[in-house]
């Protein structure tokens, strides 16, 4: 036991493993967390100890937030930034402000690891769907495909044309809090192995009477760049980009320096050059050009030019372009559309 106590004391000093659930307009908080060495932003809630809820979470997304909350392994804790935990159905959560966030996280993390804090799950503890065997060998229904075992749909064969050379289609809904997707984006896919056969994108709009958020104090393009860098496995460079995003008076040389480090065939471009090109109005077809635009925009605002808000894109047009992509390619493609998708989550675009 003494060993475990000692281990817990060391673990309490580790970087806080944070899963971030992003609502609308939370880029500043995300950049804070990415930039800070005391925090590790995890890609999966299973790897976190603390869930951070930032930005405006619409009422429609509260149930999904509860599911993400329960995916963080217990003991866990939740910190809500500039929001009301009661409105989010997370009564045990700690409320804090953006300025005090990281200090609060370190405190909460230590409390969780040393066993002083444990937020209860908000969803039902047991699986909501009982397994009922009614077939002759205990299947869920007629034949082998009957029933929905444990509430999880199985990959379903198409009615015709199944030939064993293709994997059956797996229907899946992810989001709106999946860390690898832009915020407030829900994706419904039909997966065939690792290829998307069918895609539907939905944004979760803000509540009708939600207060208008103040203008974000960070450069959203650079935040998007940090997320993209993290997605291709360049977490260390993502820190640099996030730090630059939250620097109030960026120097244009710093932006140029960052660009020199990542804009090379053996840099970030190794991951984005080969992505499928897009055919969308108002969007650069080449994925590399899309993140170059963010850097160009950051450089121009650094010399005092006005910031141009990104144009929203029609989600159904984006979805049509994702069909046939590999999952990872689709995730990266969505990441290169992050500013546009964030804009369309607030003010949806009509497809042309």
């Amino acid at each position, binding site marked *: 036991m003494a060993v475990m106590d000692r281990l817990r004391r060391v673990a309490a000093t580790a970087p806080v493993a944070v899963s971030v659930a992003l609502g609308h307009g939370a880029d500043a908080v995300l950049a804070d967390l990415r930039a800070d060495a005391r925090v590790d932003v995890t890609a999966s809630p299973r790897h976190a100890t603390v869930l951070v809820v930032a930005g405006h979470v619409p009422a429609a997304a509260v149930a999904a937030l509860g599911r993400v909350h329960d995916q963080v392994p217990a003991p866990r804790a939740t910190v809500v930034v500039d929001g009301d935990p009661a409105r989010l159905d997370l009564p045990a959560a700690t409320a804090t402000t953006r300025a005090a966030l990281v200090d609060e996280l370190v405190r909460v993390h230590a409390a969780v690891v040393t066993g002083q804090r444990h937020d209860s799950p908000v969803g039902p503890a047991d699986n909501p769907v009982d397994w009922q065997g009614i077939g002759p060998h205990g299947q869920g229904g007629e034949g082998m495909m009957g029933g929905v075992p444990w509430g999880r749909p199985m990959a379903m064969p198409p009615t*015709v*044309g*199944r*030939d*064993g*050379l293709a994997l059956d289609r797996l229907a899946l809904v992810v989001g709106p809090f999946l860390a690898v997707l832009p915020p407030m984006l829900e994706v419904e896919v039909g997966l065939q192995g690792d290829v998307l056969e069918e895609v539907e994108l939905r944004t979760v709009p803000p509540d009708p009477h939600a207060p208008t958020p103040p203008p974000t104090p960070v450069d959203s393009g650079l935040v998007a760049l940090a997320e993209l860098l993290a997605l291709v496995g360049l977490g260390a460079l993502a820190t640099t980009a996030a730090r630059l995003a939250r620097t109030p008076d960026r120097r244009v040389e710093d932006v140029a320096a960052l660009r020199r480090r990542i804009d090379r065939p053996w840099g970030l471009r190794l991951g984005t050059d080969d992505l499928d090109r897009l055919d969308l109005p108002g969007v650069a077809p080449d994925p590399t050009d899309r993140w170059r635009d963010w850097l160009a925009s950051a450089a121009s605002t650094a010399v005092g030019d006005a910031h141009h808000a990104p144009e929203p894109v029609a989600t159904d047009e984006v979805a049509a372009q994702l069909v046939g992509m590999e999952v990872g390619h689709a995730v990266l493609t969505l990441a290169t559309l992050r500013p546009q998708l964030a804009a369309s989550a607030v003010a949806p675009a009509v497809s042309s």
Partner: protein
Amino acid sequence: MTIVTVLLASAVLLGLGTWGVLSQQSFVMIMMGFELAINGVMLAAAGVWRFTSGGEPRGQVLVIVAMLVMAVEAAIGFALVVAVYRARQQDTTEGIAELSR
């Protein structure tokens, strides 16, 4: 470890493979049964080579040929299963009890 024990082990594997081939309905599982049986054959060949050949390398070549048989069986077997599946949407022996239309 003698020739008898090695051959006994291979006999057990061959018997298990035979049982699998005869009892399974799914084509793919039947192929697994064949592979298990060939597994036993390869073990027997290696054992006979080790204890009765005096080091003649052609005994090992026989095992390599058995591996070839297994590779061919898997590839052609799967291709046949795919062809049958595409034509009949069946992957069990019962499903194609009548091969003619």
